[in-house]
């Protein structure tokens, strides 16, 4: 057991730091979150992605032949760590790089890889997704958006919800039903890569309780998707989709981001009075601060364990199975603590720091719902990891 980084790793880290110092405008470090979900925020993310892409640091571990960086996993981790420490903005093509790319690299044809991967990395084509439907949330296999084969095309009709970033999307990861009769239902699902400019697609933003719109409803009316844009075989889309979800791991960068949020809460507790005394002098606040700090540290260590297992070529370790379950509930506790420290100021509309905490607090309620609710994730752990029957 050894938690030290090798000299090569540290050299790469310095390279990253130096580059960030030169390329990341100082104000960007905090500006993006303040901008919320907006066109301005998206444009900043796009510009940042372009700069990173030029340096070869989008898709750092992806094959060079498709525009990737050809780097090591360790380098990728260091890159994420440093980006998080510098509070760099996110990239624009979150879903493209986080989900579409890895999925196409795993399941796509050579043509598909050549066609899509480079533009994912450069940000030329922004990806969104269309998985859930009104009656297919936790029960995703129940999806009904129907695709009927018509020559070299699938003709798709149906409705999607919770389509992340569909308002900015050029292309879409789409799950459709190609066999309506088969049981179990997940055997009749096909995975398509849909061009968002195809006629018949209508996107309606879905306003969240925060007031922002990250998600959308998407209505599909006789949308024609070429069969060549099918990923994997017909009716085998479920297996591709399950592969996709495996790429949604929380990484080291996220752990560091939480640690920074924690430090902000500490500073908030030091400067905010609660019932007449600084919040940080209050034992019950201190207990909660400590608990959040412990959980943040555990998240970091779990990421190290995953990394260490991956570096040795092992499959996902136990700690990866609950990473999202863990941080989503932790984040609710953290943002609730910040709100409690601020007290009534956290519920008043306005501007400035209190407003940011208000946003984070409200937004965190979605964490335990999106990408598998906590209830579903506990089922998965109980059934798939611990082997308890359904």
């Amino acid at each position: 057991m050894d938690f030290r980084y090798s000299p090569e790793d540290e050299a790469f880290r310095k390279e990253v730091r130096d580059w960030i110092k030169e390329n990341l405008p100082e104000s960007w470090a905090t500006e993006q979150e303040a901008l919320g979900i907006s066109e301005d925020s998206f444009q900043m993310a796009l510009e940042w992605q372009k700069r990173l892409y030029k340096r070869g640091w989008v898709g750092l571990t992806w094959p060079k032949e498709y525009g990737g960086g050809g780097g090591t996993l360790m380098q990728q981790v260091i890159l994420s760590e440093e980006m998080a420490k510098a509070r760099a903005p996110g990239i624009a093509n979150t879903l493209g790089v986080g989900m579409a790319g890895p999925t196409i690299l795993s399941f796509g044809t050579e043509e598909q890889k050549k066609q899509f991967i480079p533009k994912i990395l450069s940000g030329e084509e922004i990806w969104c997704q269309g998985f859930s439907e009104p009656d297919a949330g936790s029960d995703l296999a129940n999806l009904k958006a129907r695709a009927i084969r018509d020559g070299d095309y699938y003709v798709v009709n149906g409705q999607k919800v919770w389509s992340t970033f569909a308002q900015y999307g050029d292309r879409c990861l789409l799950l459709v039903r190609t066999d309506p009769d088969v049981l179990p239902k997940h055997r009749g699902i096909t995975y398509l890569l849909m061009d968002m400019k195809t006629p018949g697609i209508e996107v309606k933003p879905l306003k969240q309780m925060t007031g922002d719109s990250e998600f959308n409803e998407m209505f599909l009316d006789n949308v024609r998707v070429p069969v060549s844009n099918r990923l994997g075989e017909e009716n085998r889309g479920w297996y591709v989709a399950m592969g996709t979800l495996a790429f949604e791991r929380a990484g080291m960068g996220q752990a560091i981001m939480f640690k920074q949020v924690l430090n902000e809460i500490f500073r908030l507790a030091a400067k905010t009075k609660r019932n007449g005394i600084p919040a940080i002098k209050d034992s019950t606040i201190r207990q909660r601060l400590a608990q959040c700090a412990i959980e943040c540290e555990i998240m970091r260590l779990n990421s190290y364990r995953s990394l260490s297992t991956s570096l040795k070529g092992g499959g996902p370790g136990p700690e990866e199975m609950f990473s999202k379950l863990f941080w989503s509930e932790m984040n609710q506790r953290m943002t609730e603590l910040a709100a409690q420290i601020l007290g009534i100021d956290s519920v008043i509309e306005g501007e400035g720091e209190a407003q940011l905490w208000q946003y984070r607090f409200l937004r965190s309620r979605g964490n335990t719902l999106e990408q598998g609710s906590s209830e579903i994730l506990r089922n998965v752990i109980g059934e798939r990891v611990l082997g308890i029957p359904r």
Partner: protein
Amino acid sequence: MEFTLNEEQQMLKGIARDFLENRCPKAHVRDMLTDEKGYSPELWQDMAELGWQGLMLPEEYGGTGGDFVDMVVLIEEMGRALLPGPFIPTVVYGGVAILQAGTSEKKNELLPRIAQGELSLTLALQESSERFDAEGVAAEAVEKEDHYILSGTKILVPYAHVADYILCVCRSRSSSDAEDGISLFLVDAEGEGISCITRTTFDGRKLCDVKLGEVKVSKANLLGEPHGCWPLVKRLVDHGSVAMCAEAIGGAQMAMEMSISYAKERIQFGRPIGTNQAIKHKCANMFVDVECGRSIMYWAAWAVDEGVPEASLAVPMAKSWCCDTYRRVAADSIQVHGGIGFTWDHDIPLYFKRAKTLEYTFGDCDYQREIVVRELERQLASG
């Protein structure tokens, strides 16, 4: 021994529910989120016609002579409907203060107008120290001939921007005992020297910063004994806290009912989601918490109304339990509803936000628990 709603109370509850379902649907609540006043004067007038503003006032002042428990029955329904507006400030702070401490002239002048829905009042207590006890009162009242001059800044004053009168808690005499030297003034909100900055909570309520810039107030507008008003102020806060408990329980009840319905109706994996214990047990916990909240909330209402010593423990206990409950129930309701419960257009987030605002008003649940322990220590020490 009688711990059930009587017939009149049940009737009141029924009428209130019907009226508010009709007149205060969620569309109205949403309209008020961005309304400058934050409430509908028309609805206010219609409530007065139902006798709501006068519910606790004696018949001689145009009221119906109910008690605080009746009022709490009504407020529970207002919490269920998320009714916005200055009802509690006007009726519970203003009405109770004038009724308990006003001169007969003031009673005759103001109470009938409250009952008729002509007046809106509020209580200005808190200051930048963000304390809830007498030590937090720094705003000064300086005696001068037949009047006082008030100066200082009050914060978080509910609906001061639409109030006709503001009950101002001021320090009129310095003393080693912080609870001594507190006076309560009935201040004309239009009076010279008063300025008001209005802030809106994320559930659409209005909280104002009220600046008292050398405001001249006649001695006739003193409520209760000069310098000796802290017990009255505490009583007002107790009434207000219990009113908030009623709002919380009413709101939590509604969020729970919505969750139970959704658990029965929403089908996933071929069966209602409520068949899953993760959902079913969440609903069961909501039920337990809400019913327990109802028990302690009514106990506190009765104790405050009767002015029995048990009130000093009952109020912080109720405030802590009911606000914890509302927060937990609303949060779990989002979880039961899944993604749809996280959207702007769904009603559950309105309850979730209201729960937080209530929780932080007059001290959060930790604070209330600390008060509970202090009071218990005192009781055990005195045998």
